[in-house]
């Protein structure tokens, strides 16, 4: 079953490589270049070595943002993955009802991210928004622009609303790929509903769930547009996630050097976590033979 070695296959990679490298490598090199220099003006650069990196790593604001970011991404994964899988299990398997459900469920995915922010900005306002209005009427003192907790929860609920469909869509596709014979065999073997989920559905969804987990982790870790529109990072810094902090640095204060150093660290953090998640899920798939 092992694949044959064929160096000519590299030729097939070339078009893809050129297209991606064009937009990926040059900017990356620019960023690396910035990260070790002090850019005083467009024509005046001073080499500063690792100074920016040291500064960034000791910046308490950044550490706060990092913690907020990690908590947020963790919450996102813990809510969206199980919810998406549950949703996929509940969706009809075939017929017009399946089509209709697919389209409705996928809808939030296809809305431009700032519009997602706008939708929730409107929806959550207690004066003109349905959600905020209802909560207020229920006697809950809800105000996402003033209360830290409300802002944070609103961003989280918005992300769940926005991205659970991605998990659901992938999980749904994974479920539909399971041949009927597996369910029939499980029925004959006397398996419980939970056993069917645990030993058939979950293992067969491993591939698509891996994509879902990694995509959700990367994208939630880099979330920017939606909270920016919804809360602008406030109140205080409650919803200032890493991306926003970075943008404030790079664009707002025009500290290009530190911003570049910051983004490299940022990138490495994502890489590290993706690596851990990937290996963990790989092992999860193979290691439970004695379960």
């Amino acid at each position, binding site marked *: 079953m092992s694949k044959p070695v064929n160096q000519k296959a590299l030729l097939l990679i070339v078009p893809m490589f050129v297209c991606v490298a064009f937009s990926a490598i040059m900017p990356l090199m620019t960023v690396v270049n910035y990260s070790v220099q002090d850019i005083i003006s467009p024509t005046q650069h001073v080499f500063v070595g690792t100074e920016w990196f040291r500064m960034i790593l000791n910046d308490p604001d950044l550490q706060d943002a990092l913690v907020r970011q990690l908590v947020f991404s963790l919450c996102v994964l813990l809510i969206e993955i199980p919810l998406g899988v549950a949703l996929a299990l509940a969706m009809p398997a075939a017929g017009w009802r399946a089509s209709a459900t697919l389209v409705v469920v996928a809808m939030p995915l296809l809305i431009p991210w700032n519009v997602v922010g706008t939708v929730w900005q409107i929806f959550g306002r207690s004066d003109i928004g349905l959600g905020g209005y209802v909560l207020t009427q229920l006697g809950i003192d809800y105000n996402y622009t003033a209360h830290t907790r409300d802002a944070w929860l609103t961003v989280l609920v918005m992300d769940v609303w926005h991205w659970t469909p991605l998990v659901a869509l992938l999980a749904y596709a994974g479920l539909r790929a399971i041949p009927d014979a*597996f369910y*029939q065999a499980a029925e004959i073997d006397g398996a419980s509903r939970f056993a069917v989920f645990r030993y058939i559905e979950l293992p067969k969804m491993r591939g698509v769930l891996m994509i879902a987990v990694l995509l959700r982790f990367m994208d939630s870790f880099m979330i920017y547009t939606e909270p920016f529109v919804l809360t602008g990072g406030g109140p205080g810094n409650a919803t200032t996630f890493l991306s926003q902090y970075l943008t404030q640095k790079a664009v707002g204060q025009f500290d290009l050097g530190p911003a570049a150093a910051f983004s490299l660290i940022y990138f490495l953090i994502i890489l590290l976590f993706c690596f851990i998640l990937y290996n963990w899920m790989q092992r999860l798939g193979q290691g439970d033979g004695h379960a």
Partner: protein
Amino acid sequence: MACIEFRDLGHAYRPNPATAGDYALQPMSMDWADGGAYALLGPSGCGKTTLLNIVSGLVTPSHGRVLFDGRDVTALGARERNIAQVFQFPVIYDTMTVFDNLAFPLRNRGLADAEIRNRVHEVAEMLELSNELKRRAANLAADAKQKISLGRGLVRKDVAAILFDEPLTVIDPHLKWALRRQLKKIHQQLKLTLIYVTHDQVEALTFADEVVVMTDGRVVQQGTPEALFMRPDHAFVGYFIGSPGMNLCPLSLAGEAATLGGQPLALPEPMLRALREAGDEIRLGLRPEFVRLAAAGEAGAVRARVVQAQPLGNSLLLSASVDGQLVRARLAPETRIGGDEVWLRLVAPETLYFSNDVRIAG
């Protein structure tokens, strides 16, 4: 173990079937004995998988009843019927070891660990899987996976029947034979009722005590491999079984004697009378194995033009045209065909006659 009976059993996927074509399985009654090995044989779409699914309880028939040992199980699901099934493509629990796969049905039924271990080792021994027990099932080859599927059925003591749905489809040809032999051995050892669905006649004829031949949703014959070969009840059986299948030549009874193509064919007088009574669409059937070369003008023989003579090692396969009707003959390998015209004897003790595809005499 159980004997299985079908009473007026039929199935239509649409409600209120009116014509025969509306049935995926046309109503029929049939008995299968306890401990027998049965094969359901027919081309794809003939209804054999529907019948299998009715036996396993995955499909509830729209008409009639299914009895296991006299007990009506028509409305019961697969679980309550205690059957086991091996599917076309290996169904295994990917994340489990071979041991856990085999133990799964027993664990679901709440058996004690010690007993599970005993049963699993016993079955693994029988299937020659003992050395693989600790391996992950997902990493095994297709034939080992099919053995695991089978093993999950065998571990249960209460299994009424084991069903096979074209289980050798994904197995390498050189392993098929070994696996089939192992199946036969297990059958003899355990005296299980086995039901085997296939479209491959060699598989069906070598595996089963009795073969059920199906076409167009209809059971056309149930019988031993020998009966199917020698005395097919239906022209389809004659044509489908055997390689090449039975020669089937339309006869005309319009004139004084019977004619095949343009040539008169001398039939025994009582047979001719029986055929005239049977009515229309009369066909003569004779397996290529029983066609012999004859002298010119011999009784019961016709003149044919040689199309092809193919040496097959242990026989010579002659294809000849009798006034446009192709007739095949399996002759002794040393036979010499002189010229491009031969006489073939078609009226023999083994000759059968069909009216509207149903065997009427012979």
